[in-house]
């Protein structure tokens, strides 16, 4: 099975390369369409630039023209929308486009960092950072579903900004000198990190949108 994956931001373009083989070890990443052979996945990311719908449109043309693919996966953040609203937005966009393979939509609700906050091991009971303690008081992602993270009122962060900052602080607090950014997400790419996120879904039924990611590559 060959899969064409479209992602929205830079973080997914890095992390998915490592996480997709965790979901389905038979899949190997290749970096261009001409390298696609058997059981490969190829990714195109918008890297955060505007024009994501154009990339989706061109991805459909690519899978139709190349005839090498069995599936097209479209991954996108729901951001300020509900998961269903974002799903519908993409679905309406692709509805009138003819695509020769099945399309699976993965809505990261509400961003990649929400999933990454699902790793309970990065939230220690005794955190050193005062700011992190404050965040935990506001919403403890170790206990509650990260997909329900609210906005952060004091710093006026929307929930995606809050999730990113929360994750960075948590990783930095738990593992000294370990930092996280969308351009440098090395802290979360490891299969052990992925396992913790998957366990969160399995054991606590939190981060439900991560289930769509798992199903997209099986």
């Amino acid at each position, binding site marked *: 099975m060959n899969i064409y994956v479209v992602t929205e931001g830079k973080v997914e*373009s890095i992390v998915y390369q490592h996480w997709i083989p965790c979901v389905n070890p038979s899949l190997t990443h290749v*970096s*261009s*369409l*001409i390298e696609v052979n058997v059981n490969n996945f190829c*990714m*195109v*990311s*918008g*890297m955060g*630039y505007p*024009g994501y719908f*154009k*990339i989706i449109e*061109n*991805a459909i*043309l*690519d899978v139709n*023209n*190349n005839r090498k693919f069995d599936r097209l996966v479209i991954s996108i953040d729901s951001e300020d929308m509900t998961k269903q609203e974002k799903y519908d937005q993409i679905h309406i966009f692709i509805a009138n486009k003819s695509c020769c393979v099945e399309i699976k939509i993965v809505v990261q609700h509400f961003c990649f960092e929400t999933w990454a906050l699902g790793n309970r091991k990065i939230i220690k009971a005794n955190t050193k950072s005062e700011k992190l303690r404050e965040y935990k008081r506001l919403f403890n992602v170790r206990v509650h579903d990260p997909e329900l993270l609210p906005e952060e009122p004091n710093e006026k962060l929307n929930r995606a900004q809050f999730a990113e900052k929360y994750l960075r602080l948590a990783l930095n607090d738990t593992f000294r000198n370990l930092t996280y950014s969308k351009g440098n997400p090395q802290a979360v790419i490891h299969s052990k990190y992925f396992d913790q996120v998957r366990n969160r879904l399995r054991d606590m039924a939190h981060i439900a949108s991560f289930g769509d990611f798992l199903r997209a590559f099986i």
Partner: protein
Amino acid sequence: MKILEYHCRALDQLAWDFDSVKFDNINLLVGDTATGKTRLLNTLFNLGRFVTVKEFKYGSWNIVFEHAGITYTWDLQTNSQDSDGEERIVKENLSKHENQTLVPIIERNDKSFVFADRQMPKLSSRETSISLLQEEDNIRPLYQGFSRIQRRLFSEDALMQVSTFQVLPKRVISQVGTKGDLEKLFVADMNLSCKLCILSRHFKKVYQVIIDYFRQVFPFVQEHSIKELSEIQPNIALGGYCPVFTIRERGSKQWIPIHEFSSGMKKILLILTDIFILPDGGVYIIDEYENSLGVSAIDFFPQFILDLEKNVQFFITSHHPYIINAIPPSNWFVFHRNGMKVSIRYGEDLIRRFESSKQEYFIQLINDPFFSRGVE
């Protein structure tokens, strides 16, 4: 002058080493931040300074260039900054390409300096032979070639500098006016208004082309005029004729002097003036063209240089999707850095991969592992 092949290794404390690369007329340097694009352009510009203003630079250069129909190979190496002793050139070879062979013109090392088969007396080891021998008939054109490398900086300060008030230098007027020599205008240290003033008087066609392009980018410019400073600022007198380039916008009666233009307007006017004044065989270096420019000014540039019927070699860096998409990948040079080693891949080599996809070239570029790994 056209730089055909270029290799540079800095011999200063940072010791950056760039891949050897073959250049074209239009060269778009692309790569993630800090991959070495600007540094490469600096080495090129510095080499020009080394020759023309004798500004010593530590480094090793291997360059093949063409000037006035002749191809030359020039290898230049200085001592390293870490080494003992004073700044000096340790090795220099200049050859002319003739019937697929290299004919030596200069062979120089620590002990000997041979020019055209003649042993030279002791000369400054801090200066390049092209600089030392610039009065020689067969070296003069090369010196001239290196003096035509132009790099512009577009910081707020730099743009302010070119739009300040300046009295029109009489010497330049007489030189340019009587000889009709545009190169005199190129080398003259003058602000933009003075240059435009001289163009409007002595090179009317060139002036009109600049204005036409300027209005193409900024169609709201209704009229243009070069006014005397006293018409604009009656309270300032500089003791001479001080031209000020002004425009009047559509729907306004107000004349706007150049120093009140937006940064983007100043930048476009400066680039256009530079390019049209740059003598034949000039090299023009622009680092991050898109900075301070709006969409219309960004859109304009790629097609402008692709259509330009002028013998100018361009070196441009850009991170902008429009610029990168609009310039063919065959003109790209993709940068990647590992420590101090800068690898440069030809865009030409990406074309086969890119043609298998309908994604825009910019999107494919930023997803390419060589590009996206950036600095390792």
